C-alpha cells in the first residue's frame, strides 16, 4: 500500500485459485439458495422484479379538456389495471353530440393522473431479473434479499480486454500453439456452446463464424483494432465493456496487434480442454479495475489456493512482460533496478529497469511504467 507503483500489476493466471463471485440483484428480491448449497453455473440463485417502463398520455390534450377536468373524465383511477388501447378517459359535449376518448398507450397500471398538466402515466408490467450462479461452486454467503456469494476452487486466467457478458460452456482448444492465428477455418459446428481457445491474433471472420456457430465465447491473444470495431459495429472508445450482446463473448489476453497469447495462459487452458468453464467479458479499465476472465472450476477440490500476488514487489529476478513499443509483448527478467532517474530516448527522465529479453538474451533499459509483472 505504501509504495507508489511504478509498474503495472500483471494479470492473474493460476491453476489454483480460490474464486469468490458476488451475485447481486439490482433491487431486493428473492434468494433461491442457502449457504452451503452446491450450485451449477446455470442455476438461478436470485430473482427480482424491476418496476415496469412508463408511458404517458396527455388526456387533457386528447380530450381538449383543461387539466383540472381530467380526473372527472377518467374511467380508471390511480392503481387500476388497464390494457393497451383500452379507453381510459372519455368526454361528451353538447348532449353527447361530440365524443372524445383517450386510450392506454401500454398495458399496465395507472400510476398518476395529473390535474396540473393533464398527463396520465401508465406503468407497464414489472421486468423480471434472474441471476444465475455464474460458476459451479458453493454458496458461502447470503446477504439480505439481494446478494449471494459463490465460491469455487479452480483455474483462473484473467484477460486484458473483453467484449460481452457472462457465458458458460466446455473448453474447446482450436489452436496448437499460443502464437497460431485463430482463423475462420478452425470454426466448425462442433463449436456450439463451447468456450473456444485460440492462440495469437483472432480474425474478424473467425469471430463472425463463432457467432454463427453459437459458440459461448472466444478466448485469444489479440485482435486488430479495426476488426474489433467491425465486429462491434462501432469504434470502441473506452475500455468499459460487458453490455454488448453479440451472442458470443470475447476475451483478449494480450491486446491489439499480432501478439501471441502468453504461453502460461495457453497451456493452462489447453490442459483443461473439454472441461466446464465460465467466462466473463466485462472489463473496466478505470479506477476499480475489472478484468475479463476464464474460470475453470475443479469440483471437490480442497487444496490451498495460491495466494494472489501482492502488487508490490518488483525486484531483480522478477519475471516481467514489456507492454509498450518497441518491445511490446516480449517476456524478460529484471536484472537491475537503478535507483536514479534515467533519460530514455524521448528525453524524459524516468525510473527504469534493465531487463534481459527471454528470446534474445539482450539486456535493454525500459521505463518501469512499461513493465507488467507476471503473477501466478
Amino acid at each position: 500500500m505504501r509504495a507508489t507503483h511504478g509498474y503495472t500489476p500483471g494479470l492473474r493466471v493460476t491453476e489454483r485459485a480460490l474464486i469468490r463471485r458476488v451475485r447481486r440483484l439490482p433491487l431486493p428480491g428473492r434468494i433461491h439458495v442457502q449457504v452451503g448449497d452446491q450450485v451449477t453455473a446455470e442455476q438461478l440463485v436470485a430473482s427480482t422484479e424491476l418496476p415496469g417502463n412508463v408511458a404517458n398520455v396527455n388526456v387533457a390534450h386528447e380530450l381538449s379538456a383543461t387539466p383540472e377536468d381530467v380526473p372527472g373524465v377518467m374511467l380508471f383511477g390511480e392503481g387500476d389495471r388497464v390494457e393497451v388501447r383500452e379507453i381510459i378517459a372519455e368526454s361528451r359535449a353538447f348532449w353527447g353530440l361530440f365524443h372524445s376518448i383517450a386510450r392506454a398507450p401500454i398495458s399496465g397500471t395507472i400510476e398518476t393522473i395529473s390535474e396540473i398538466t393533464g398527463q396520465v402515466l401508465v406503468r407497464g408490467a414489472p421486468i423480471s431479473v434472474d441471476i444465475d450462479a455464474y460458476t459451479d461452486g458453493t454458496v458461502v454467503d447470503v446477504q439480505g434479499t439481494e446478494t449471494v456469494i459463490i465460491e469455487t476452487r479452480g483455474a483462473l486466467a484473467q484477460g486484458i480486454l473483453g467484449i460481452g457478458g457472462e457465458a458458460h460452456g466446455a473448453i474447446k482448444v482450436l489452436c496448437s500453439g499460443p502464437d497460431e492465428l485463430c482463423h475462420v477455418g478452425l470454426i466448425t459446428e462442433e463449436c456450439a456452446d463451447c468456450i473456444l481457445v485460440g492462440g495469437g491474433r483472432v480474425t474478424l471472420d473467425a469471430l463472425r463464424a463463432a457467432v454463427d456457430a453459437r459458440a459461448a465465447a472466444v478466448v485469444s491473444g489479440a485482435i486488430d483494432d479495426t476488426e474489433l470495431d467491425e465486429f462491434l459495429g462501432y469504434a470502441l472508445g473506452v475500455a468499459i465493456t460487458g453490455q454488448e450482446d453479440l451472442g458470443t463473448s470475447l476475451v483478449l489476453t494480450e491486446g491489439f496487434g499480432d501478439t501471441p497469447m502468453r504461453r502460461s495462459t495457453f497451456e493452462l487452458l489447453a490442459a483443461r480442454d473439454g472441461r466446464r468453464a465460465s467466462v466473463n467479458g466485462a472489463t473496466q479499465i478505470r479506477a476499480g479495475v475489472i478484468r475479463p476472465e476464464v474460470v475453470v472450476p475443479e469440483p471437490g477440490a480442497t487444496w490451498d489456493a495460491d495466494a494472489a500476488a501482492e502488487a508490490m514487489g518488483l525486484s531483480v529476478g522478477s519475471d516481467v512482460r514489456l507492454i509498450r513499443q518497441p518491445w511490446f509483448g516480449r517476456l524478460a527478467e529484471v536484472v537491475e533496478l537503478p535507483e536514479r532517474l534515467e533519460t530514455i530516448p524521448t528525453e524524459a527522465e524516468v525510473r527504469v529497469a534493465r531487463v534481459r529479453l527471454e528470446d534474445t538474451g539482450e539486456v535493454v533499459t525500459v521505463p518501469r511504467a512499461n513493465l507488467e509483472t507476471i503473477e501466478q
Partner: protein
Amino acid sequence: MTRSARTLRKVSGPPGANPPPTRASHQGGRQPLLADDQPLRSVLATDCGSTTTKAILIELVDGEYRLRVRGEAPTTVEAPYEDVTAGVLNAVAEVEELSGRTLLHDGEIIRPQQGAEGVDAYVSTSSAGGGLQVMVVGLVRSMTAESAQRAALGAGAIVMDVLALDDGRRDYERIERMRELRPDMILISGGVDGGETRKVVEMAELVAAANPRARLGASYELPVIFAGNVEARELVSHVLQRAAALTVVDNLRPTMEQERLGPARAEIQELFLQHVMAQAPGYPRLMSWTDADIMPTPAAVGSLIEAVAKREGINVVGVDIGGATTDVFSVFAGTFNRTVSANLGMSYSISNVLAEAGLDNMLRWLATHPDPRRLGNDIRNKMIRPTTIPQTLVDLTVEHAAAREALRLAFEQHKLLATELKGVQRQRDIADAFGAAGAQSLVDMKALDLIVGSGGVLSHAPRRTQAALMMIDAFEPQGVTRLAVDSIFMMPQLGVLATISEEAATQVFYRDCLIPLGTCIAPAGTAWPGAPCVRVSAHIGADTIALDVPCGEMRLLPLDEGQVAEVQIDPTRRFDVGAGRGRSVSARATGGVVGLIIDTRGRPLALPADAEQRAETIRRWHEALGAYPQSADEAGAEAVAS
C-alpha cells in the same frame, strides 16, 4: 458560500444509518484555524483523483509561501480498501518521508503545527469515484437547459445528459434514460419567472415517473434541485415529494436576458458535500479532517483560474487534459465558463480521441508516415494499459498528435457552450433577419491573454517547447498570447487553499505552480506559403531584434523567464494581430522557458494537403522551435520499417 436555497425537504436516511452530516454540523465541528493575527505557517493539501491521491506541503519561508514537497499514492476509494483516507494517509506519509517533517500521529494529520511537526491547515479536493455526476433537465435545450448545464459544469460536475422538450426524444425514452443513468443528483430548470409552468411540471412528472436511483448509497433518496420558474415551485415539489429529496433555489434564468447561476452552483456543491461525499467510502472521516469544505477538483481549478483572470484583469483559457477527460475553463470579460469533455483523454479515452478526430486528423501532425494499422493497434494498447509511457520518439510524437486532437475537440466543445445567452432579443439588421439568431461564442481568440495548460502530457512533456506547440496547434491563439503550464498539476489544491488563504494560494501559484513558457505572436489570416506576413521588432533591454517572417513559418526568439520585450508588430494587409488587417500593434511580450514564438502559419491553421509536403513542413516547424530531437523524424521512419 451563502445559501439562497429554500429547503422544502431534507434527505432522510435508512433506519439506523448515520445521518449525513449537514454543512452546519460539519463546520460546527471545526476549530477556528488560527488567531486572526497569526499567519498560516504551513498547509497540507490533497487532491483525491480517480487513480492517484496527490499531496503537497506548503510552508511559509522568509515571509513567502512556497511548495516544499509533493507526494502521491494510489486512491483507495474502490475495493478492496474502500476508504479514501487510506490513500490520503499514504500520500501524506510520502510527503513526510520526502520532507523529513512529521505530519501524522495515530493515523491523523497533526494540526495545528507544533514546533516542527504537523501543519496549521489541511484542505482537499476530490474527483475520486468518477467525480460529481449530474443530470440536467430543462425546457428548451439552447436556453434554460443550457443555462442549467453551465451551472452544473461550473460547480465541477460531469453532465451525464441534458433532457429537454426539444431534445428529439419521446417521453418514454427520457424516462428510460433517467432510469439507466445513475446520477449523483438532478438539476431541473425551466421557465423564466412568471413564464411557462405546465411544461415545467410535465418534466418534473417524468422525473418522478422514472424514480431514478442515486449512484452511491442505494438506500437514500436522489437529491433533486429545482432552479426554475418561481411560480412552478409548489407544483414541482408536490409532484416530486415521493420520488426525491427536493431542494429549491432561485431560478437560474429569471428572465431571458439574465442568467444567475450562483445559487444553483452553490447548492450543487452543498449537496455534493452532504450527500455524495457523505456516502462515498471514508469521506465522512476525511471531511472531519479538513479546514475547508472538500471541493470537486474541477471546481477548485475553475475558481483558481477565475481568480487569476480577476487579479490580472485578463482573459484566460485553462485546460486540464487527463487520462479520461479534458476540462476547459475560460474567463472572457469576467464571465467564467467550464466544459468537460468526458471521453477525450490521453489514456483511458485515447481511442475515443482517435474515433472522434479520425485517423487523418491524427496523422496530419506527424512528420513521419506510420503504418495506420500499427498506429491504431498502438493507440488501443495504450487504452488498455493506460499507465505506460512512450519510450521511442515516434511513440512520443504519436501521443502528442493525439493530445493536439483531444485539446482541439475539447476546445471546440467549449466554444459552443461558452456563449452569450440564447433566446435574448437583440436589435438585428436586415442581414441577421435572414439568418438564425445564433448566439456568439464568448471565446474571442484575439482578446485572449493567457493559456494555461495542465495534465500529464503538457506538464511532463520532455521539452517545454513541445507543450507550447501542442497548445498553439490545438487552440490557434491569435494576436499576442502568453503561454504557461502547471508544473506538477497542483491547481486543484491551490484552488481549495484559496478558500482559506488567498495569499498563500496566489504566492505558490506564481512561484511554484505556473511555469511561463513565453509568448506567441500569431497573425490571423491566410496567404500562400512564402508570402510576406509580418515584421516583428522586439526590444529586449538594450537589444533590438527585427525580423520579417513570411507566411507558413515558425520562429523562436530567445526571451527568458522574467524578461519582458516591447514588441512592434507590423502585419501585411491580409493579416490581423488584434487591431484589424494590416494594422500595427505594440505590445509587451513576457518571456518564459521557451521564449517568443512567432507563428505565421495563418489562422485558421491549414496544413499542406500532400502528405510528403506536410511531413516536410512539420519537420521544418519542429526544427525552427527545437521541439524534438532531430532524430525524431528518422526514428519514426525506422520504427515503421522494423
